[in-house]
């Protein structure tokens, strides 16, 4: 298929892998931020083609994985209300909170719908004036523009029966949290290509300078990832630390201004708790005062008990790249996609689920 096959070409991958083998001198640990990148790496078996000096660790860029349990509990409580049609992206439906998942809520009678876009939820709100339509706004900067657009349109249309449960998170504060952690073992980052398509990469430049860490904005196909790794290693071996753009066909330094404007119009930066990691300052988005009446938490006043995170799940260590999923004693035994102990085992973007799905037995 045009525009895809070029980036999945075995001969090109072998050429670049050869160049990487000739380039690398010392051991390096590189983290890819985004869950979509983790999925490609594990599914295509890319790690097996890399020189032994390079270790990949998988970052916290799986929105499903880092959405706090309290929010999932709130979602389930809202969905259970008889007047509510609860809409969500597909892979959020399966994530368990303390009172089960949205799919289980559906089995118990809740009206839960999978949508591909928040604008589909708006359509549902227009078509069902007697119902309250709630959209679960999960994701990084990638999903923020469309979610902002939905609220903006609802406000213009005076759509009173639409609201949003906001769980938007931001990448740079999470990267800074990882970089400033005493357990840090990351030498370079592959920055998330789709997030940067929206936001550009200017905000990564001060981070790269301050911590002396190479950051390569990278795409999602196998050849993209390999080239991103190559560029990062070239910087590391050459003693450089700067922001580079591998994903030039989609990302510009300043990003997509129109999308950014819509985000800023509707959302403001707020502190946010990350599942398995804890609260990170200025790492989330919430609706601005002007749009607060579309906030489902305010509208329904559903209070979720604060959940104390405890147990044997090492999600936090996995999400910051300190441990690999198969280093967890529960991996693949007490913790599986059917009986997840933690969120990274739930979404196919989650590091644990990706390893379970595609790579499990290689580490037996």
């Amino acid at each position: 298929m045009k525009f895809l096959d070029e980036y999945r070409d075995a001969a090109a991958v072998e050429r670049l892998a050869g160049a990487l083998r000739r380039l690398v001198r010392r051991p390096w640990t590189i983290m890819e931020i985004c869950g979509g990148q983790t999925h490609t790496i594990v599914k295509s078996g890319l790690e097996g083609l890399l020189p032994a000096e390079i270790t990949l660790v998988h970052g916290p860029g799986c929105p499903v994985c880092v959405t706090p349990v309290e929010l999932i509990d709130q979602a389930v409580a809202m969905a259970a209300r008889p007047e509510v049609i609860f809409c969500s992206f597909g892979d959020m439906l399966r994530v368990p909170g303390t009172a089960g998942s949205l799919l289980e809520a559906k089995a118990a009678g809740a009206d839960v719908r999978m949508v591909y876009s928040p604008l589909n939820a708006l359509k549902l709100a227009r078509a069902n004036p007697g119902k309250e339509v709630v959209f679960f706004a999960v994701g990084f900067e990638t999903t923020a523009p469309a979610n902002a657009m939905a609220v903006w349109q609802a406000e213009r249309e005076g759509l009173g029966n639409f609201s949003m449960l906001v769980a938007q998170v931001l990448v740079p504060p999470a990267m800074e949290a990882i970089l400033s952690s005493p357990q840090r073992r990351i030498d370079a980052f592959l920055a998330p290509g789709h997030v940067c398509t929206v936001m550009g990469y200017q905000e990564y430049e001060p981070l790269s300078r301050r911590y002396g860490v190479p950051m390569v904005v990278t795409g999602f196909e196998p050849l993209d990832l390999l080239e991103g790794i190559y560029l990062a290693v070239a910087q590391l071996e050459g003693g450089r630390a700067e922001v580079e753009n591998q994903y030039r066909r989609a990302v510009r330094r300043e990003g997509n201004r129109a999308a950014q404007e819509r985000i800023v119009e509707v959302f403001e930066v707020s502190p946010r708790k990350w599942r398995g990691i804890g609260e990170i300052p200025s790492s989330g988005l919430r609706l601005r005062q002007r749009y607060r009446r579309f906030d489902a938490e305010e509208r329904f006043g559903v209070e979720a008990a604060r959940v104390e995170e405890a147990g044997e799940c090492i999600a936090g260590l996995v999400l910051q790249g300190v441990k690999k999923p198969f280093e967890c004693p529960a991996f693949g035994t007490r913790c599986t996609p059917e009986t997840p102990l933690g969120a990274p085992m739930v979404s196919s973007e989650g590091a644990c689920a990706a390893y379970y799905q595609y790579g499990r037995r290689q580490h037996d």
Partner: protein
Amino acid sequence: MTEFNSSCPVMRPAEERVLLAHGGGGRLMHQLIERVFVAEWASAGLQARHDGAVVRVGGARLAFTTDSYVVRPLEFPGGNIGDLAVNGTVNDLAMCGARPLYLSAGFILEEGLEIETLRRVARSMRQAAARAGVALVTGDTKVVDKGKGDGIFINTAGIGVVEAPAEIAPQAVRAGDAVIVSGDLGAHGVAVLSVREGLEFEAPVTSDTAPLWAPVEGLLKAGLEVHCLRDLTRGGLASALNEIAGAGGVGIEIRETAVPVREAVQGACEILGLDPLYVANEGRFVAFVPERDAARALEVLRGFQVCALAARIGAVRAGPRGVVELESRIGGHSILDLLSGEQLPRIC
């Protein structure tokens, strides 16, 4: 600086209810079958691990199977629920190496359904039965309250006479066997989903629903040794291969580049966030034949229009048992596992 909390809550064990994911053809469905039906019925003669049962009546070996059809929308590009109900059961018999002969059809209709819709479905079933060479000999109709059904649910059961000289089953699969798919994958699932999601493509994707006895008969008449056959419905190729690897106690390796997927289907899967290897087909099967018969089997299959794109995609290995390995497009290796439930599109 943020302190990392390195733990996650322990999940409460889910209350035991049937989830939609239990019907997705993945690991959850297998668990449900094992824990409920196999547990209760094993002693009653249940042959749970194949598409149909083979029973002896007098001197004859009969294949007997049943399947229920629920699809939304009822009509989609390339067919409707009636086509599926006939072809699906015909194909389950064919996968036992049996010539399909007689079908029953039970209907559960929702109050308010337009009779004209039902008539179109019934007409499609007649045409599909004629094409497959089976007779629709008995049936049943029930009507449920509005809101208690989804227009039409159909159950069909079928019987056929086994013509394969040897057992066709996962247990007959041997290391060294060639793995052949009968055509391009994913068209049915994508056709249904694109209607459901309101997507339109430059080249419209139509369902691949078709009867498969003719190509199976072709393989048998050519005197080829056929070890196992499986139609690639719910859960797609990946799930079928996992079931066979598990039940047969063998390993299977396939090459991603060898699996035929049409460009329109691949494109739709990229947009919808799906892997075509897990998408449902309604007129495709996988065949396991000894290496020496592989070339001839491909030639025979390609002689049937429905199998024009048949391709050899991999081979059976002695181990690791129960594991399906995928050589990716770029030459990397990964495990092609059963999904837990249905495929759910990822967020970004």
